[in-house]
């Protein structure tokens, strides 16, 4: 093998390394190529000095294999560079963690019609419709539990009832948090906050009483009734209106069953009314989905503030 052929062979490897480092800092690429060429040439020279009748082709293959695949070497340079940059930076810029990225606030809002493809819009809608049921349950639970423990306070059993009730509030807060995370995509606590080991009703009562989270959770449970009523009525209204508008042309052109009682102009132009209604429906449905996304985001914000305390 001639020197020119060796040069060409090394060139192929160096080009591959350069390609693998594409997009990295120029100085880093230069360092990497310099290191590689220096090593490969030195190694070849050493082997040739040891054995003048060396099979250079085979030796080159061996040397390149020992040096490592271009992708592997490139990754090592990049990793190391990041490490040094992180170690030397006075305050490393904090990259958003995957957990944070899951928060709805950091997700880009979908485009007007893109909302159809956003799963979160549908899960939010489901949450908002469900919130009437959960709101009624939470409110009832909170009012019954509070009045029961207050009423029984004159007897001694009021205290264990109150402890059990406040404990249940925190459990419900955790359950609601799971629901919020699953349907609204807002990161919520995954487990109960740690419980101190000390036993006895006095300490547990004190702990439950002194923790602001208990009370904010209770407030949230009570608040869920008006919010649930509001969410449910708004969403049902918007959903039924937009779906009805969207269905009008179908009903008119397919089933010919639209009648306009007391609207003479509409009765005279049923086709026009049907088309306009259909177009309005085409706009109203995504608006509904956007509204559910926004309300879901708002609710997630509320849940984070009432149910999560650090």
């Amino acid at each position, binding site marked *: 093998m001639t020197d020119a052929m060796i040069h060409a062979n090394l060139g192929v490897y160096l080009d591959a390394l350069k390609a693998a480092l594409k997009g990295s800092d120029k100085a880093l690429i230069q*360092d*990497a190529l*310099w*290191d*590689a*060429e*220096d*090593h490969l*040439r*030195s*190694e070849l*020279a*050493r082997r040739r000095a040891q054995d003048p009748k060396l099979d250079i082709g085979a030796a080159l293959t061996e040397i390149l294999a*020992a*040096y*490592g*695949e271009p992708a*592997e*070497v490139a990754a*090592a*340079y990049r*990793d*190391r*560079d990041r*490490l*040094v940059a992180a*170690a*030397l930076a006075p305050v490393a810029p904090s990259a958003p963690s995957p957990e944070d990225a899951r928060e709805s606030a950091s997700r880009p809002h979908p485009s007007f019609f893109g909302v159809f493809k956003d799963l979160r819009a549908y899960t939010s809608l489901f949450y908002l419709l469900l919130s009437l049921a959960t709101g009624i349950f939470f409110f009832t639970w909170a009012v019954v539990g509070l009045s029961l423990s207050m009423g029984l306070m004159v007897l001694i059993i009021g205290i264990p009832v109150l402890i059990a009730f406040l404990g249940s509030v925190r459990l419900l807060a955790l359950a609601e948090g799971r629901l919020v995370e699953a349907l609204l995509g807002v990161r919520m606590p995954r487990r109960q906050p740690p419980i101190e080991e000390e036993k006895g009703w006095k300490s547990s009562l004190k702990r439950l009483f002194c923790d602001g989270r208990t009370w904010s959770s209770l407030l949230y449970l009570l608040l869920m009734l008006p919010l649930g009523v509001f969410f449910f009525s708004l969403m049902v209204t918007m959903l039924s209106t937009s779906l009805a508008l969207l269905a009008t042309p179908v009903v008119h052109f397919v089933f010919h069953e639209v009648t306009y009682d007391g609207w003479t102009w509409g009765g005279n132009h049923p086709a026009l009314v049907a088309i306009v209604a259909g177009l309005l429906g085409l706009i109203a449905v995504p608006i509904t989905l956007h509204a559910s996304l926004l309300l879901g985001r708002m609710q997630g914000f509320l849940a984070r503030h009432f149910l999560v305390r650090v």
Partner: protein
Amino acid sequence: MDPTLLDDLERKFQKELNAGTVGLLLLAVLAETKEPRYAYDIAKDLEERAPITKLGTLYPVLRSLEGLGLLDSRVEPSVSGPPRKYYRLTKEGRAALSAWAKQWKQTSQAVNAVLKGVSHD
């Protein structure tokens, strides 16, 4: 389990292990001599005594150790071919080496104690 996945995991584990140990080994090799050493010589030395990594991944570690101030380098012309890069331990590098070596001893002892009885081939 998929055998290629197992291979992948094995490679990844070796890479994770090397992330710390290669730097320690390079510092240790450089601590053996007072004179600056040629980068290629360091790599060859390590290849013979501790063949745990591809040679190409040693050089970025040398550069990063230099970047952290643990090594010093200078480029010298050579009689045959292109100029060569020589590395030398700095005072900080020596301090890091003794601290890291201590950590390594503790870690390896602890790991070996737990691994006692795990069969391997």
